[in-house]
């Protein structure tokens, strides 16, 4: 009886804590929401008040109209870009993780290829894009590669650091247990590197979208990137704004998804318990 009673009390307390925490969350978000709505209103007022021509700056209402009337063209171009960003994200990060594992196990490999990776990273992505289009043609491939390239470097650097972040004491422990390199990698290094990896993946989740869009600027007739170019040349400012907002939305969704996965995977990090 008594045990059940305290159990219930605890559950109630937890529930109360939950709802008060949710309230607290909204209270913290409120200023940002109010500020955003205020800025949108201000924008609408300025455009209406000063009679700014639509091709220079459309009003928020005009942009919203595009979503309502031309939703289909937006969606048709949304999916290829999303697909390229996702594929580039997987490819770039996958290669970066594998290379990092290799570097940590072979000093020779690290000495040979790390400088090359740094060099490739210093070439502006805008400059590489045309080269890749020449090499890989007009399809999805160059866009995926550009998105992968843009993700690759931060993940490589972070992953190498993460794999090396194991404490010497933990390595002593594994040595006393006569563990081999593979066991140290699977049981210790990969897990310790996860916080570093997710820091990089969060960056990559947004930059991969940028990579896909930049790839579509050059000789492409589909995707948000090409829609941006087309809308600009045709002075269709509301469509341009709507496309940009959709691209930003894609990046926000990718970032949020990565954060959710991070919280699931890194439950053991006290700082990540929500």
């Amino acid at each position, binding site marked *: 009886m008594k045990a059940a009673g305290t159990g219930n009390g605890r559950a109630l307390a937890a529930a109360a804590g939950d709802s008060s925490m949710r309230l607290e969350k909204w209270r913290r978000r409120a200023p940002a929401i109010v500020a955003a709505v205020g800025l949108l209103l201000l924008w609408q007022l300025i455009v209406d008040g000063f009679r700014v021509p639509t091709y220079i700056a459309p009003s928020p209402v005009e942009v919203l109209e595009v979503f309502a009337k031309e939703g289909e063209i937006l969606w048709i171009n949304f999916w290829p870009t999303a697909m390229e960003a996702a594929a580039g994200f997987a490819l770039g990060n996958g290669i970066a993780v594998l290379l990092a594992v290799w570097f940590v196990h072979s000093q020779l490999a690290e000495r040979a290829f790390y400088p090359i990776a740094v060099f490739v990273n210093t070439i502006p992505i805008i400059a590489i894009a045309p080269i890749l289009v020449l090499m890989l043609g007009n399809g999805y491939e160059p866009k995926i590669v550009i998105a992968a390239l843009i993700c690759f470097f931060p993940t490589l650097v972070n992953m190498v650091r993460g794999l090396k972040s194991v404490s010497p004491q*933990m390595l002593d422990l594994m040595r*006393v*247990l*006569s*563990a081999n390199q593979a*066991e140290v990698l699977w049981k210790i290094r990969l897990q310790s590197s*996860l916080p570093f990896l997710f820091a990089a993946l969060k960056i990559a989740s947004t930059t991969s979208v940028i990579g896909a869009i930049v790839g579509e600027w050059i000789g492409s007739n589909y995707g948000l990137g090409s829609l941006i170019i087309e809308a600009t040349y045709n002075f269709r400012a509301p469509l341009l704004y709507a496309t940009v907002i959709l691209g930003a939305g894609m990046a926000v969704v990718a970032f949020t998804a990565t954060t959710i996965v991070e919280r699931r995977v890194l439950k*053991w990090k006290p700082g990540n318990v929500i």
Partner: protein
Amino acid sequence: MNVGAAAEVAPRVGVVAAISVDRLAVRFEGNDGSITALSDVDFEVSEGGFVTMLGPSGCGKSTLLRAIADLVPVSEGGIRVFGRTPEQSRLARDFAFVFQDPTLLPWRSAIDNVRLPLEVGRRGGVELERHAEPEDLLALVGLQGREDALPHELSGGMKQRVSIARALVQKPRVLLMDEPFGALDEITRDKLNEELLRIWRETGTTIMFVTHSVPEAAFLGRKCLVLSAQPGRVRGYVDIDLAEPRQLSIRDTLEFVQITSHLRSLLEVGK
């Protein structure tokens, strides 16, 4: 012939020490030249013994323990653990190490941390049939019901208990402990001291235990090895005869105080 064979076999069974250290020297090549951490260290620990180690900071206590555990190469002399080299006995899982820091894997629950030694290092075909049940060990160290807790949900003392359970899971013949309770408050430390003695009596494991606390060394050890300051040499190897089984209250007796003051005087000479 028969008699001769028996005479040869007999000492191996009864007399082979759990740990024997023979004119050991350990040197490190550091940035400021070669440092001699240990020199001419000679002692034996008999099977089932409990030896504590005292010495000024930097005298090489950790180095000695790490040399026995094959974590530090020997420069001169020899170490045998049940007649085997440190490397052989490491591969055979003769010993387990408990560090000052609990060194738990933060992503593993308490029980999974205790299981770690059963999961790795077995490519050499180490026989771990003589392993204990992780659940039983957590109960042994007083953590039943906390099996699924993650390390960050446990107190410092609890984490160290998990690390002791992890060391015991492979039923080691020797337990090497480097200031395992150094970071704990006095009350927790007293409690763990008593528990460690109980575990020692129940399991019959040979224990070598480094500490900075003279009372702890006297209370736990059946023998106490006192090292001198750098380079570490054996200053004394003191028998500690106190009433058994030991209870914390023994620390207020005259015999106990005499022993601790003797140990202190040895440490003073070392300086």
